[in-house]
């Protein structure tokens, strides 16, 4: 990659400077509208043999690992998993929290960065929003998967019935249920709204079945000024509205734990702790996905520049620090609280037979980002970023694993302590949801323009350079 080591500080002529800016920022590297649309369409419509193989493998994974094992679990009973007394929640809820966390970043990256007008967001908001929706789809399965009697799940829905019974609105699980459905719905709409112009673009450039689908989905978008106006307004409203939803959803997920009396869960910092953890893992997941998109799909190197990795790397570093603060805070609070059972639990996390999970968590979440991400060079090496963010996600998985099965295993009565070990079904279903996520993403990558072309074009139109003293600075016109 040419732009790798170029900086703006070296000796430079004016044209060189312009070239640098162009190389560095997508917004300063405009292409004709037609060409760019063509590039996105080409990326979307090019499928290699490898793609089909991957799609088939992950599709089979969904079928067998997720639905096959789940079916067996429904027929045989929850006992095919490794749960036991006292670890009644384990890998399923761990993965549930993990997916909900991942799904946060889409909204975060897209909505918050949109609200704050962070321009580097433009090429990858779509990718992040897709991640939100599919992450939620994968995650929202778990409350069902983990039910002992999933065939009665509809009792959690409030509806008038012959039994004269309603769900228990005091239960965090009902809040959870409502919050997740709300979030799924709003994030899907939030994904869909900015997609409309791109779908229209795709509609105009495709034939056959694709055309009919796009036509249906594009809602007869014509691109008139009035339509644009309404769309911008709608997106703006949603961008603002979805932020509190996002925060509340993960807070509510954290309340599943925090409102209980379980040792190690009963903590007031769980709300922000979970949100920070979610954003940390979510932003990391965005980096992972962008790396994969950039390195496997056509024309993507143009859209996804190093500046993206650089900026996201900074975000990861900041959230890793915030996470560390909360992690430390949890210990501080419990130290101050002085409850023996919690102290035993925290000691057990750090020194018990499963301490390796705890160390994995700390090393991956704190040590690795802090040691690497301060370095601009590393931040601008996509492969390194991919590895680091993967490790951060491993660390975040370990964090949830520590919070759920490892905490449940060590409650107030040492007589009842018990160690959970996952069995084939737990692991299969968890991998199955990863397959589901990837499968959906693979499908979407060939059905939906992964790059919000209009947003990029809008940004490029708005960007220009202005001479200020000897150097050039970017100036962004207000479009809305």
């Amino acid at each position, binding site marked *: 990659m040419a732009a790798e080591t170029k900086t703006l500080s070296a000796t430079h002529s004016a044209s060189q400077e312009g070239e640098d800016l162009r190389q560095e920022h997508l917004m300063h590297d405009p292409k004709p509208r037609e060409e760019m649309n063509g590039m996105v369409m080409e990326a979307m419509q090019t499928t290699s043999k490898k793609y089909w193989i991957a799609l088939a493998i992950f599709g089979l994974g969904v079928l067998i690992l997720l639905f096959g094992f789940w079916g067996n679990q429904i027929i045989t009973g929850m006992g095919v998993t490794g749960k036991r007394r006292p670890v009644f929640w384990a890998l399923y809820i761990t993965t549930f929290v993990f997916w909900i966390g991942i799904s946060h970043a889409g909204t975060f990256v897209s909505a918050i960065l949109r609200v704050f007008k962070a321009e580097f967001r433009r090429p990858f908001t779509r990718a992040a929003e897709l991640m939100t929706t599919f992450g939620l789809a994968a995650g929202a399965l778990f409350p069902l998967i983990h039910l002992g009697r999933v065939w009665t799940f509809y009792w959690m829905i409030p509806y008038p*019935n*012959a*039994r*004269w019974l309603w769900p228990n609105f005091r239960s965090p699980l009902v809040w959870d249920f409502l919050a997740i459905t709300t979030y799924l719905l709003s994030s899907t709409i939030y994904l869909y709204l900015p997609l409309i112009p791109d779908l229209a673009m795709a509609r105009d450039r495709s034939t056959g079945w694709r055309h009919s689908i796009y036509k249906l989905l594009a809602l007869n978008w014509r691109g008139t000024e009035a339509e644009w106006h309404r769309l911008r307004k709608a997106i703006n409203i949603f961008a603002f509205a979805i932020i509190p939803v996002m925060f509340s959803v993960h807070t509510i997920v954290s309340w599943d734990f925090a409102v209980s009396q379980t040792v190690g869960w009963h903590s007031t910092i769980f709300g922000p702790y979970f949100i920070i953890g979610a954003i940390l893992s979510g932003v990391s997941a965005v980096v992972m996905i962008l790396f994969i998109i950039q390195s496997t799909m056509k024309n993507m190197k143009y859209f996804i520049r190093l500046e993206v990795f650089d900026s996201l790397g900074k975000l990861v570093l900041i959230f890793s620090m915030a996470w560390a603060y909360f992690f430390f805070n949890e210990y501080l609070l419990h130290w101050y609280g002085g409850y023996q059972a919690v102290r035993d639990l925290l000691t057990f996390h750090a020194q018990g037979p499963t301490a390796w999970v705890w160390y994995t968590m700390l090393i991956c979440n704190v040590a690795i980002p802090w040691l690497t991400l301060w370095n601009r060079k590393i931040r601008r090496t996509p492969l390194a970023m991919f590895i680091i963010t993967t490790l951060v996600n491993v660390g975040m998985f370990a964090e949830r694993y520590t919070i759920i099965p490892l905490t449940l295993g060590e409650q107030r009565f040492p007589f009842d302590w018990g160690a959970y070990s996952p069995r084939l079904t737990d692991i299969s279903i968890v991998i199955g949801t990863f397959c589901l996520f990837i499968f959906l993403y693979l499908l979407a990558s060939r059905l939906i323009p992964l790059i919000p072309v209009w947003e990029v074009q809008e940004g490029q139109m708005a960007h220009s350079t202005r001479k200020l003293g000897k150097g050039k600075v970017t100036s962004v016109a207000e479009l809305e």
Partner: protein
Amino acid sequence: MQRKKPWWQNAGLRIGIALVMLVLLGGAATGVVITQKAPQQPIEFPHNFHVGTGIPCAYCHSGAETGPVAGLPSIETCWGCHQQLRTNTPRLAKLAEYGSTNTPIPWVPVFIQPDFVHFNHRPHVAAGLECKTCHGDTAGQTVAEPIPGQNMGWCLDCHYKMAPENFTRLSDCATCHY
């Protein structure tokens, strides 16, 4: 471009779906009919006749006043009277067969509740409820016929109407489920 029929107008697909639906709906209908229909009894016991002669229900369903289950009559109960009475109809011939060999009659209970519902006759009888309030007018039936929709809402509805002042107790989960 050749005009293609959309997939949902494919005749084969439609026939296939129709067949599947037929099977499913037929099954469902059969299920509904089976569960709402009076079962086949070993002897077509004429409730109407017996009630008409003034025999109290508890003569044969003796458990209702003293315990949770009303019970079905043993061959002793039937044979006690019918040894003396008219053995000339086909139904009574069947009874005579059971009675003379002293084999139990495999009655099929009609009013049944699932395992997790613990219904108790005694307090209902003690509260002065008539049998027909829940079991329908057996004086008009030969074999007993089920009353559709006897579910939890049905119980609660009655409890609420009959004894609103005791509704806390009567709607307590532990009253029936344990």
